[in-house]
């Protein structure tokens, strides 16, 4: 139970984690994340990396869609920009991987700005379709350009640091997890400054925001740039993780996946992006477990896995939107509120 919070400075009140309980939980979580690779099997490490990559990308999309209110169905395409850039740089130049990741992300940000330009004139679905159009054009470009290996795509060498090769789930975890944590922290920081406030203002009432001193186009493009920077970075991590990048690696359905992740997790909350991405990454795996488990009773279970995944994916989107529109983050808040008063329930 928590009784009131007493703060003695504005700084304490403006902190990201403002109670000792929160900070305690955070330390535990961090310790868990550090200990995890030493106890987990490669399979679980693989999943953890995949979750982290998806969290990074979903957090970026959340800034754009959840906070700025601009719907994008191009997040996967922006990821592909980062992934291809990293692959090309690694293959052609062999530059250090951190540099490659940053260049890939910056390139994605530039593409993001280009795609965002119509956002001043078009809104809602029209904008979403413009982002689909950009995805289609990028897909076409990557599958016809010799530099990106045309339809075959690219196979690339692993990242390496001072001759040490990062190619196992264990080592990749130490690359991917810290980068993702920094990205999430960055997003949370961004949201407590004037930039985050401008994003929310644009989402809630864009025209009033303009009269209050927020240049719309600049902030919409900033949001696109940051969001696609995050996507590009996530795509770069993805490339180092799988080491094969093809035009089919980032289909439109992946863009829908990220949108679904922030809906299921809770749009417009950082926690929502994290919870949603982890949840949506793990559900297909859970279904695989279920199918394996069911096979002795129902031999066709594995064959049914693919369509069932598609159905569950759609069902989660619909179900959350209708029954829990503020997502997993809201459920988490309810749980916390319960424990604030526990054991004295009112």
């Amino acid at each position: 139970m928590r009784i009131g919070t007493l703060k003695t400075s504005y700084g304490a009140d403006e902190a990201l984690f403002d109670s000792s309980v929160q900070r305690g939980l955070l330390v535990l979580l961090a310790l868990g994340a550090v200990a995890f690779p030493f106890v987990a099997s490669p399979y679980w490490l693989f999943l953890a990396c995949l979750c982290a990559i998806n969290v990074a990308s979903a957090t970026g999309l959340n800034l754009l869609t959840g906070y700025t209110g601009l719907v994008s169905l191009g997040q996967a395409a922006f990821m592909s920009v980062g992934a291809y850039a990293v692959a090309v740089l690694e293959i052609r130049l062999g530059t250090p991987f951190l540099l490659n990741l940053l260049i890939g992300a910056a390139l994605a940000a530039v593409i993001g700005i280009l795609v965002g330009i119509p956002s001043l004139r078009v809104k809602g679905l029209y904008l979403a379709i413009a982002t689909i159009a950009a995805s289609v054009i990028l897909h076409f470009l990557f599958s016809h350009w010799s530099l990106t290996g045309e339809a075959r795509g690219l196979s690339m060498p692993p990242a390496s640091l001072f001759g040490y090769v990062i190619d196992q789930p264990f080592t990749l975890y130490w690359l991917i997890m810290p980068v993702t944590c920094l990205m999430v922290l960055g997003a949370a920081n961004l949201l407590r400054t004037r930039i985050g406030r401008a994003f929310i203002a644009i989402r809630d009432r864009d025209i009033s925001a303009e009269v209050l001193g927020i240049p719309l186009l600049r902030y919409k493009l900033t949001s696109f740039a940051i969001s696609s920077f995050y996507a590009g970075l996530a795509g770069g991590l993805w490339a180092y993780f799988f080491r094969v990048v093809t035009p089919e690696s980032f289909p439109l359905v992946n863009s829908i996946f990220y949108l679904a992740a922030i809906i299921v997790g809770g749009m417009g909350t950082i926690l929502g992006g994290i919870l949603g991405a982890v949840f949506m990454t793990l559900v297909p795996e859970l279904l695989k477990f279920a199918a394996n488990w069911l096979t002795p009773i129902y031999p066709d279970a594995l064959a049914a896995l693919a369509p069932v995944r598609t159905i569950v994916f759609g069902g989660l989107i619909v179900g959350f939107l209708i029954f829990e529109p503020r997502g997993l983050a809201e459920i988490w808040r309810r749980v916390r509120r319960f424990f604030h008063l526990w054991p004295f329930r009112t």
Partner: protein
Amino acid sequence: MSLARADMAARPILEVSGLSLAFGGLRALSDVSFTVPEEAITAVIGPNGAGKTSLFNTISGFYRPQAGSIIFAGENLQGVRAPQRAARGLARTFQNIALFRGMTVLDNIKLGRHAHMRTGVLDALLYWGRAQKEELELRAEIEERIIDFLEIQHIRDAAVGTLSYGLQKRVELARALAMRPRILMLDEPVAGMNREETEDMARFILDVKEEWGVTILMVEHDMGMVMDISDHVVVLNFGQVIASGTPREVQGNEAVIAAYLGSGDVGEIARRIKAEAA
């Protein structure tokens, strides 16, 4: 000495001349001219549909007029876009409250300072150095100068959607004050308020003028309040200025009385104008 002071006070901070605005064939403003003297309260009144809010929206830079000029603090605002006008000190509130529902009261107020802050994307991502310093300074200033002043300490962390209408209007005023206004444009600051809330708001507006030295331009239907607190009154009807002057001058003006009698909202207002004039 006193003459010089009167001169100072009469120097206009905002000069609107020959302003015309039309939507298709509908003329919202035609040849509107008036001046707003510095450190005074100027009220724009007129029957519904007279063009008052259109006038505000044009001054804010949301509508582009077909003709005329707006000179603010000696600078012609033609071609200056809305966000830059806000940055130059044109702050305002809205007739239909325009608070951001996704933010707390405190964040809504902080948003007002946007144009005067320097934090860039990189500072913000790191929340280090400048970003942090700027945020904390802003927080302290808002707490000490605005939240205390407007007596809204108890709701600073509330979601704006949960507040009463009167409090929402007060938060809007707080946000406008955070904009470092040189001129504060209030669009119906007391519409829909009860007597007590109206009196509070009138007091705040007078205090803003006196303690902050901010010029006020307001649109208001509450004649009692307009007559009580304003130094100058501009009367609009059908998009045209039909009278202007001190409250007393305007009250006796035949055209003004006719405008109110001729419009829909006769009774109460006409009676009050006459009562005040008597």
